[in-house]
């Protein structure tokens, strides 16, 4: 475990923290957004926000694929699941997300044939094994996940599997970053770029952040030391008046991404004109639909999907949490009406959701920090 120890080494962490303290201008408050839910998880799990100087604030972003799916799409998924003859397949973390009439799990309890799958290929296999049923796969996720759906669709076409289709809710990472940069709600100083999405898309798509918005972005890994190093790299850029896209996670992420995965994406998907994001509203060209060549496998064309827009419950403030405007503990229902057992909003469902991560780990660190007088209230 040499490498693990290296990335958990308290001495190394202290050195980076010292560097962060040197770089941070005490007269300035820094707001850095971690785009990816995986980073949010690491930050709360290890109490990173409380070891940083108080004027270096980490703000959670929209990069939790479960969290950003709006309620109307959950209702659509449930309508598909309740269509006679359909076996509806989904990743586990989508099962508990509440729609306006309950979750997929509740639809299953009412008798719909809803099944967990680990991979879209498992859903395709189910279709092969059940030729008299229609198997629909609930595709969610950013560019990390979308290539897997693309390969599965290409395989379905090659193998002539006609009773398989995909309900695509794949989204892309750049438009929400742009939406947040355009939003007047939040003044950000820089971004921690998403690690795993970038293995597919590379670092080039983020250039506009530096070029057009004058903000630095550093693609970061998921270890505590990765996050600290990326924060130091951002502060160094700000200190030196530089504004660039840098890569902290070079051991996994290449600047050009994964060309083969990108080719699969281009072959199977095209951009939707609009897609609704929870909390961010409709964002142009921010999601993926199947190309016309794959229409026979497009669940939205093959089945009646209500496609009704549903407003979030009034009490739910996931939208503000996803935009980084609110911290989880500032939401009115956090930890009271909304818990991981009985979630009202998506951010409390997924382990990458800021609220679930904070509920599990962060509040303990925060309570300790408040007690020690590191933060107030």
């Amino acid at each position, binding site marked *: 475990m040499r490498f693990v120890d290296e990335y958990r080494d308290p001495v190394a962490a202290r050195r980076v923290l010292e560097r962060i303290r040197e770089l941070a201008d005490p007269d300035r408050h820094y707001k850095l957004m971690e785009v990816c839910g995986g980073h949010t998880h690491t930050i709360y799990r290890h109490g990173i926000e409380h070891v940083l100087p108080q004027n270096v604030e980490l703000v959670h972003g929209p990069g939790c694929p479960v969290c950003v799916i709006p309620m109307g799409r959950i209702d659509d998924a449930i309508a598909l699941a309740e269509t006679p003859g359909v076996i509806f397949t989904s*990743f586990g973390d989508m099962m508990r997300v509440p729609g306006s009439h309950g979750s997929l799990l509740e639809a299953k309890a009412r008798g719909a044939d809803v099944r967990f799958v680990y991979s*879209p*290929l498992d859903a395709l296999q189910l279709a092969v094994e059940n030729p008299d049923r229609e198997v629909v796969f609930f595709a969610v*996720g*950013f560019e990390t*996940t979308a290539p*897997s759906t693309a390969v599965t669709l290409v395989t379905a076409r090659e193998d002539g599997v006609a009773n398989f289709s995909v309900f695509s809710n794949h989204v892309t990472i750049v438009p929400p970053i742009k939406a947040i940069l355009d939003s007047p709600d939040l003044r950000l100083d820089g971004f921690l770029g998403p690690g795993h*999405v970038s293995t597919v898309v590379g670092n080039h798509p983020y250039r506009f952040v530096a070029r057009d918005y004058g903000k630095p972005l550093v693609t970061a890994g998921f270890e505590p030391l990765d996050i600290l190093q990326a924060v130091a790299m951002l502060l160094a850029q700000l200190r030196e008046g530089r504004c660039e896209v840098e890569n902290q996670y070079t051991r996994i992420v290449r600047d050009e991404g994964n060309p*083969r995965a990108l080719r699969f994406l281009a072959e199977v998907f095209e951009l939707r004109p609009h897609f609704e994001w929870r909390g961010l509203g409709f964002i142009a060209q921010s999601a993926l639909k199947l190309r016309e060549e794959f229409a026979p496998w497009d669940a939205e064309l093959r089945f009646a999907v209500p496609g009704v827009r549903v407003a979030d419950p009034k009490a739910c403030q996931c939208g503000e949490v996803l935009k980084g405007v609110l911290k989880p503990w500032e939401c009115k229902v956090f930890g009271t009406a909304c818990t991981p057992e009985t979630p009202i909003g998506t951010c409390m469902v997924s382990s990458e959701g800021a609220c679930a991560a904070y509920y599990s780990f962060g509040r303990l660190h925060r309570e300790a920090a408040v007690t020690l007088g590191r933060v107030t209230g």
Partner: protein
Amino acid sequence: MCLGIPGQLVELCADNDQLARVEIAGVRRVINIGLLEDEVLAPGDWVLIHVGFAMSKIDEDEAAMALASLQLMGSGLDDEMRMLRGTTP
């Protein structure tokens, strides 16, 4: 959902060059390796796996680190492993 789980290659499937058998935290299953371009894979190699697809070739140290992180995540890894076991083809 965006988790990457490290797995070690056990064998490449003889009848389909897109597939390989891997061992992930003690569970064996077939994964798709079609997204790895220009990577030469051999038994014993480590890959980062996401929803049944190898996303990157990694070294043993990175694999150990990713697994240690996932173990700390608790329910995140449990869910992922349950999915994996539940649907082993």
